[in-house]
């Protein structure tokens, strides 16, 4: 028992240590800072034109392939959309599938997924003296499973979400100490959001915290929001709702996490309130749409800042959290959190106390808000671009798909720039009344979406942007238009390169200083995941998943034609099918395409009498 108390801290440190080695990519954003940044400079501006495919792997399923593989030592762990099979590949001979774990799921789970049957990734726990390392997987049908990283055997599996009430799981699990965090999905079906921590070894629930409702269920610390009482503090999880509407109030978290071990705080965003029809839920609808700082050990919230009080546009606030340490305008070193939200604002907070440092529009065409007041924290709404019953609001920017969505972006700590994959989509929106029935969709709005003012509305193209953003000055070092939304996120390297995948099927590398396009490669299908990089046998590889889908791909994936179908995305992405079709796999690149097989073509060959 005496040593058991020490193990959590050790496991925690192990993940930090593993992440320092460029051989590994042990969690969604590479390390706890979630910067998607690599110190490696083997691949750089000078030689990126020699980047070639080294090897590839098909997952055997279609639909959207979000997230990125994990690499630990000699192994790559690959997740896939429904039915969420996990593969372990041998990096010394990637043609060899070391193990695969395919869960049996109730196919009904597919019917309550709002936005394709995607999954955002795996998590890894390094193990201890008594327990082998584990891979964690969420399943669309609501389960969280722990798999033996060596053998792929299921060690335990727990129920976290019930598809009968419309609750599913698409989020990647996240390991902190000896706990695995699991988020939630289903605000489009009125699911009240919650985050849960399980013991990595046993699956025992440690704590659970909701996004709406009574303070005990929100799990607020005694000094919650004490540094910023004007953000609101107690009883607001019920007081900012009429009656029991908070019970079906959304606020699910299906985005990404970041963690600061010194503060023992992890950070994430809660999603949109339900339903989309704003008239049916008067009030600020706290604590949906909020940036949370929670103590990992207890789950207690130290601070929360609501970005979009009383949402009227489905600006689900679950986007990526990137941590950095930078000098503020007064020259004071600050521990920061930067978060590009769906609502078109990039928020930067002091991550120790929630202080609002900056809140800039990621594009000047954002119109629902005139500005965010840094002293009050309030967004000054422009009533002209709000939504309401018996009214068709037009030309609202951003659209419900946001100027930024689920893409996991990156931060270059040398250049002090955030590499933002941005959407350029606006919309018309008309709500309608509907009843709530558990397990059925609870949206209540009809949308029409199209390119923003800087795109080509007539031809339905020019739906994306990529920009390098400075969180302190608020300036964009460079900005570039893209044909489609940059949905999958970005990765920056010390080689001065910013990598990202596009919906029309390319992986691209831009100059991090100028934004110039230096290299690209045509992949089998569009990309909605983020690039990753690792070093194996002294060689730097860049890997990315392909397989178009997600919300922008629902028209293509489910063969829909009504422009308002797919929650309005079908119209916006009507041209996508002219550039890509479905796919599913991982493509791995290196300089000159070097791999274990170019080193020696005999690697992996059949040898009579050998088992493998």
């Amino acid at each position, binding site marked *: 028992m005496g040593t058991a108390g020490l193990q959590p801290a050790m496991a925690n440190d192990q993940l930090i240590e593993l992440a320092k080695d460029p051989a590994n990519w042990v969690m969604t954003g590479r390390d706890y800072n979630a910067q998607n940044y690599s110190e490696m400079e083997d691949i750089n501006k000078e030689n990126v034109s020699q980047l070639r495919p080294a090897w590839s792997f098909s997952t055997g399923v279609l639909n959207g392939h979000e997230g990125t593989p994990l690499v630990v030592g000699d192994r790559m762990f690959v997740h896939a959309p429904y039915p969420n099979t996990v593969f372990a590949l041998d990096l010394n001979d990637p043609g060899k599938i070391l193990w695969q774990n395919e869960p049996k799921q109730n196919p009904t789970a597919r019917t309550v997924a709002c936005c394709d049957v995607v999954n955002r990734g795996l998590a890894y726990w390094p193990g201890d003296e008594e327990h082998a390392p584990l891979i964690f997987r969420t399943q669309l049908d609501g389960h969280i499973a722990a798999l033996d990283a060596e053998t792929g055997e299921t060690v335990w599996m727990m129920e976290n979400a019930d598809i009968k009430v419309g609750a599913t799981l698409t989020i990647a699990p996240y390991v902190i100490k000896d706990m695995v965090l699991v988020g939630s999905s289903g605000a489009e079906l009125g*699911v009240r959001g919650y985050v849960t921590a399980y013991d990595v070894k046993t699956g025992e629930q440690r704590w659970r915290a909701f996004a709406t409702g009574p303070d005990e269920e929100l799990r607020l610390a005694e000094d919650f929001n004490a540094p910023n009482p004007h953000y609101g503090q107690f009883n607001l999880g019920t007081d900012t709702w009429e009656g029991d509407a908070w019970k079906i109030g959304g606020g699910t978290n299906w985005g990404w996490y970041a963690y600061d071990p010194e503060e023992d705080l992890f950070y994430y965003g809660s999603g949109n309130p339900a339903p989309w029809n704003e008239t049916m839920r008067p*009030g600020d609808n706290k604590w949906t749409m909020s940036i949370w700082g929670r103590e990992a050990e207890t789950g207690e919230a130290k601070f929360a800042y609501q970005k979009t009080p009383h949402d009227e546009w489905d600006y689900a606030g679950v986007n990526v959290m990137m941590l950095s340490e930078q000098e503020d305008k007064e020259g004071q070193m600050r521990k920061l959190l930067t978060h590009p939200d769906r609502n078109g604002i990039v928020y930067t907070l002091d991550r120790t106390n929630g202080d609002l440092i900056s809140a800039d529009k990621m594009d000047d065409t954002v119109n629902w808000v005139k500005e965010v007041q840094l002293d009050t924290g309030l967004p000054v*709404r422009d009533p002209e671009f709000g939504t309401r019953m018996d009214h068709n609001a037009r030309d609202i920017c951003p659209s419900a798909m946001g100027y930024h969505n689920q893409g996991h972006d990156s931060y270059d700590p040398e250049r002090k720039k955030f590499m933002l994959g941005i959407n350029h989509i606006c919309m018309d929106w008309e709500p309608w009344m509907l009843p*709530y029935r558990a397990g059925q969709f609870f949206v209540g709005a009809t949308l029409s979406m199209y390119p923003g003012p800087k795109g080509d509305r007539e031809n339905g193209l020019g739906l994306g942007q990529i920009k390098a953003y400075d969180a302190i000055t608020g300036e964009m070092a460079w900005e570039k238009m893209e044909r489609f939304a940059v949905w999958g996120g970005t990765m920056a390297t010390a080689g001065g390169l910013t990598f990202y995948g596009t919906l029309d099927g390319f992986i691209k590398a831009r100059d991090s200083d100028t934004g110039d396009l230096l290299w690209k490669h045509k992949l089998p299908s569009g990309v909605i995941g983020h690039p990753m990089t690792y070093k194996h046998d002294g060689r730097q590889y860049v890997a990315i998943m392909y397989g178009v889908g997600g919300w922008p791909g629902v028209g293509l994936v489910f063969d829909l034609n009504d422009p308002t179908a797919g929650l309005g995305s079908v119209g916006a992405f009507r041209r996508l099918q002219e550039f890509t079709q479905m796919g599913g796999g991982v493509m791995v690149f290196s300089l000159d395409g070097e791999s274990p097989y170019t080193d020696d073509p005999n690697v992996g060959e059949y040898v009579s009498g050998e088992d493998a």
Partner: protein
Amino acid sequence: MKLLSFGLVAALTLATPAFAYDGTNCKAPGNCWEPKPGYPEKVEGSEYDPQHDPAELSKQGEALTAMDNRNAWRVWHMKQSGEFEYDVTKIPGYEEGGTPPAE
């Protein structure tokens, strides 16, 4: 001053939509919602009353309680036996809704 400005806003909202809900007039810290001109302060009893069925609203909470209970049995059984069993009906002593024996 606060009362005056509130009255002023209320009077003007009817004529000029520019003074409509802009999110900056707060009843209390963290509580800044206002009805839009022509829309009710409370939807109950109005034409926008969602008329939620309390039985439907309680289903999610019931589902979580049931899942947590099954999970507790799974954890208990693994601690007892060292083997993981997902199917709770195969766990000796399992009763639906009952709590696993104290260790």
